């Protein structure tokens, strides 16, 4: 039971001089239990699209069906299941600042849990576990989330969502501002969540991540869907028209193929994969 986006359009500030059509008749499917990347040019509508998934914004027209359990549509009717929906599908925002508001880091991460009914001591214990998973140690627990570095804020914001244990986790540029080790920590965490059976949706500009971690990729351009498929299908088409850059590993494998080496690039996600394919050939 995938996520089905059906003829979705979204207009910001309708009927004003600054009206912006951010999504235009987008239809797509996101399969369960996999990692799907949403990519595309600045302003192409990625953040807008994901915000419709748990009804942070309501479609102007069209609808989103979440695993046949929830439907987000344009009607004015109140969605009675909205709290359950937000528990089922949670979003880490592009700017962590939009998500941080409590007076301490641990309270901030525990906030959502308490909102969903968990009592204080358990909520704080769970918060600590989640913080550990994103590389934030106990010296941060009682600090203000506003007085952190950029990367520390992002980690805390990610912990605040992971801790809720949603079935679908949506992360908007989760590695922006993270140091290389931090990126790896978060991406490995995402992989382990996938192994647990979660559905993961990542908005990213980093094609290395798309190649090495994602099962599917969706490309938006000026509010329209222009591609849906696997990463290697994407990179083997002419991607320059979508302002996408072929990741260096993929480009290198392509050049090896041109030189006559017989490789199955769709199976290569790392330099190690490449080296072992070459060894097999010998």
């Amino acid at each position, binding site marked *: 039971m995938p996520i089905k986006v059906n003829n979705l359009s979204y207009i910001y500030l309708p009927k004003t001089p600054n009206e912006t059509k951010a999504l235009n008749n987008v239809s797509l499917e996101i399969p369960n239990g996999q990692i799907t990347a949403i990519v595309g040019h600045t302003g192409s509508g990625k953040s807008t699209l994901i915000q419709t998934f748990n009804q942070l914004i309501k479609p102007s027209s069209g609808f989103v069906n979440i695993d046949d359990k929830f439907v987000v549509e344009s009607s004015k009717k109140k969605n009675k299941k909205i709290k359950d929906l937000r528990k089922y599908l949670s979003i880490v925002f592009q700017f962590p600042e939009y998500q941080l508001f409590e007076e301490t880091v641990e309270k901030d991460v525990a906030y959502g849990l308490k909102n969903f009914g968990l009592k204080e001591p358990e909520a704080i214990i769970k918060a600590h576990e989640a913080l550990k998973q994103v590389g934030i140690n106990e010296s941060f627990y009682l600090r203000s989330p506003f007085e952190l570095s950029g990367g520390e804020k992002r980690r805390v914001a990610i912990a605040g969502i992971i801790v809720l244990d949603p079935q679908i986790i949506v992360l908007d540029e989760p590695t922006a501002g*993270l*140091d290389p080790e931090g990126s790896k920590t978060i991406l490995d965490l995402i992989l382990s969540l996938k192994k647990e059976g979660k559905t993961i949706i990542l908005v990213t500009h980093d094609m290395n991540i798309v190649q090495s971690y994602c099962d599917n990729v969706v490309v938006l351009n000026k509010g329209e869907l222009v591609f849906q498929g696997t990463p290697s299908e994407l990179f083997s088409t002419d991607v320059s028209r979508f302002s996408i850059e072929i990741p260096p590993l993929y480009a290198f494998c392509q050049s090896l193929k041109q030189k006559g080496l017989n490789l199955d690039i769709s199976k290569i996600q790392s330099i190690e994969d490449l080296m072992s394919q070459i060894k097999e050939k010998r």
Partner: protein
Amino acid sequence: MKNVVVNKLNFSYDKETEVLKDVSLEIEKGQYVSIVGHNGSGKSTLGKLLIGLLTPKSGDITICGLPLNKDNINEIRSKVAIVFQNPDNQFIGATVEDDIAFSLENQNIDRKKMPELIKKAASDVGMIDFLTKEPSYLSGGQKQRVAIADSLVRNPEILILDEATSMLDPSGKEEITRLILELKKKNKDLTIISITHDIEEAYKSDHIILIQNGEVVLSLPPKELFNSYELIEKYHLDIPFEVKLKKALIDNGYKVDEESSLDELGELLCR
């Protein structure tokens, strides 16, 4: 000539934890320097100290030959532009146009020339169609583009970029890099200090400064850094693809020359 001189700088936000410890560094006029280091190492704090937004606990900073102090701060701020890590912290104006205009305040610029300068800056970063929009209602990457326009329009002598392109798409990143290199061609003395986690970007700069736990631990040209596996491992650095590939080839028994290009590495694998 040295354009930025930092001498034994110490700083803490709360008097308890030292955030910067005895930081000393020198940056030549016209150099393009990358500052790298793990989350929370003190990079943004250093950036804010360099423009006098924070005050050091001890030590001193000299910018374009002027000691950073109350008397000089306005003059220094007219020469230095910073793009903050979070673009929302940059915006003052109610529209993109106003916002860029605000950065021209106190720059001794002929009022009549301002509209033209604003239009040029906005179109340089690809935001000319957004002049009447409210900065807070833009997408992440659009915000970063406006923040970059805010600082470029001032034609600074020193440009500090704090992860200024972290949310741009690859072609957007390239556009901005090209734009800055063009500026540099026009003004050879433009000094660029770029705080970044993007190792491919740092690889292209003239010089890398590595900060760890508030201390400068390395200051050297990129090639020197990435040719030393010892340093890479010691400081847990990410490595550019080219360097990673060479290391994998060596580990697999190939004879690799330090200077070989990607194309030559490819030839080696196809033999």
